[in-house]
């Protein structure tokens, strides 16, 4: 089962989680970040991951991606063990996941177009130059950038454009699973709302499953189907927002029912609040 095309699309009634984390333990020296963390991400959903600073949201993402070897626990991504070092398993995960790092993590010596072509060159070296170029152009425009951005260097782009370019690179291989690490951090509210909308549109058009780390309450309310809360070194809840607001936990209460949480819920300060897709996807 290490073939991208043998995976079922989310449209079929498939209740197997696309990411399954069990008993994850991560520690740095004496400092335990995760202690017995469990999490399921279902195909076709946008799962928001929230938690205070230092609760290990990014560490969780890095563990799932295999960038960090956890100290204990099991992680299964797209049907393979994330800790596996076997070439076929690594390839399977690399081809089927896209990652947008916090500031885009674009290669600064390459233009945006070349950045997007990197994964295509690496994984499909036999693609013709023209098709690869057109695919890069397509992804850049899907991410909401002008075609002219293709020949620009990352240093010539604004923060919001860098994120869009990073998203284009993450989408280069049409991965079914997309990781976004604080995609709206550092964007102005209008840019952030536009990015939320883009995420939702792409998720529906491409049938993506999105693992979204965020601090942004507006993003949670605008696009997330379910939200996982990390606190006390575990995922203390995975639920829809109305359920979480009622959860009796001090951090959760302060987070969702504090002034900012209420503003995001009531004020509809930005973003489209269209009815979220079902967790199983309505692509």
């Amino acid at each position, binding site marked *: 089962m290490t073939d*991208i*095309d*043998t995976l079922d*699309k989310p*449209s079929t009634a498939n209740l197997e989680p696309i990411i399954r984390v069990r008993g994850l333990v991560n520690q740095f020296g004496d400092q335990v970040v995760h202690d017995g963390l469990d999490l399921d991400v279902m195909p076709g959903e946008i799962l928001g991951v929230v938690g205070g600073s230092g609760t290990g949201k990014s560490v969780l993402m890095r563990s799932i991606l295999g960038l960090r070897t956890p100290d204990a626990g099991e992680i299964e991504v797209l049907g393979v063990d994330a800790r596996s070092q076997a070439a076929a398993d690594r390839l399977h995960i690399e081809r089927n996941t896209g990652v947008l790092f916090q500031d885009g993590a674009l290669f*600064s*010596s390459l*233009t945006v177009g070349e950045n997007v072509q990197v994964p*295509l060159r690496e994984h*499909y070296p*036999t*693609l*013709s130059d*023209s*098709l690869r*170029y*057109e*695919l890069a*152009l*397509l*992804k850049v*425009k*899907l991410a909401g950038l002008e*075609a*002219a951005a*293709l*020949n620009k260097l*990352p*240093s010539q782009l604004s923060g919001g454009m860098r994120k869009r370019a990073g998203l284009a690179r993450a*989408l280069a*291989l*049409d991965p079914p699973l997309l990781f976004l690490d604080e995609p709206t951090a550092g964007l102005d509210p209008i840019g952030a709302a536009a990015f939320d909308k883009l995420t939702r*549109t*792409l998720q*529906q*058009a*491409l*049938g993506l499953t999105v693992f979204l780390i965020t601090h942004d309450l507006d993003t949670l309310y605008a696009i997330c189907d379910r939200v996982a809360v990390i606190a006390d070194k575990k995922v203390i809840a995975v639920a829809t927002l109305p359920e979480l607001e009622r959860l009796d936990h001090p951090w959760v209460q302060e987070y969702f029912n504090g002034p900012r949480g209420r503003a995001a819920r009531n004020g509809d300060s930005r973003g489209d609040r269209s009815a979220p897709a079902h967790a199983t996807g309505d*692509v």
Partner: protein
Amino acid sequence: MGARDAAPTITIDQGNAAGSGPRLQLKGRWTLRYAAQVSAALADAPDQAGSVDATAVDRLDSAGVLQLLRFAHRRQIDFAIFDFRADHHALVAAIEDVADDRPRKKPEYGFAAALGRLGFAVVDNWVEIVALISFLGENLSKLLRMIKQPRRFRLTATVSHMEQVGLDAVPLVFLLSYLVGAVIAFLGANILQDFGATIYVVELVNVAFLREFGVLLTAILLAGRTASAFTAQIGAMVSREEVDAMRTLGLDPVDVLVIPRLLALMVTLPLLSFIADIAGLLGGMSVGAFSLDIPPQAYLSRMQETMHLRHFLVGLAKAPVFAMVIALIGCLEGLQVEGTAQSVGERTTSSVVQAISLVIVLDAIAAIWFMQVGW
């Protein structure tokens, strides 16, 4: 599902030719992974098509849609006659939205572009020279200001840099100078032996080291070791906006970052040159003792008879100048970093190259000048 079903195929259904052409039936997986087969299948497809039935396509991604769009564009087939499965509609619509216009021209890689880059490089070099001279002026004026306002001077930073660029470099400078001294003695002895003048090795090593090699070797070593460190340290701070933060807090980056480094190097480079002189002389003496039959006592007494203080002074006089060149280039390049990791690397390379070249050029000019003056 077997591999046979996976390959993208087109079957032509002639019988049901209701419109202007046959009906094409697409099957299989039209994805990036099968891009080559998709191209082949589309190349074999007929020029005319009445309708295209893609509802039996098992799997479709943006690469597949893009190739179908290109196919439709090439054959001038209206994309509306393509019939997709319901759950592919969103994807097709999204790709169609953004893929309508033709790709732009790629950047130039030809001869004209190369000529253009050459022109830019010449201008850049000129700008660099002007920048270095004005940076020298800025530093001198701020040093003068520091004499009037001594509280601007940062003693702790200066001493810390002295340790890093001076004390920590002693073993390296000593070892390399010792070896070069020994090599010069060997080379000289080989030639002087033919004239029976082996004892002149002492003068050769003395003059060579005290006038030129001691200070030159030290300066080249520090240009590699210290100029690069200065550029990388300051460059990393620039790229993390620390230098901008400094300016907004009312700190002058030249006072805080450049002058401590400049003074530290100007103090330590002459001292290191002195160590290099001693090490070089020791290298020559060792070769004399071990393989030229000149015992250390004879070597030393010959040294005392023939050595002039002016050689030593000529050599050491160049040290502060070299120190200034190395420190200024290292710091200036660091301050010119432009925020990317690549820029830090480029600037570091450039600072080492500039520092070493300039040190050698200045040394050559100084050598000619001192000879002409008769020192």
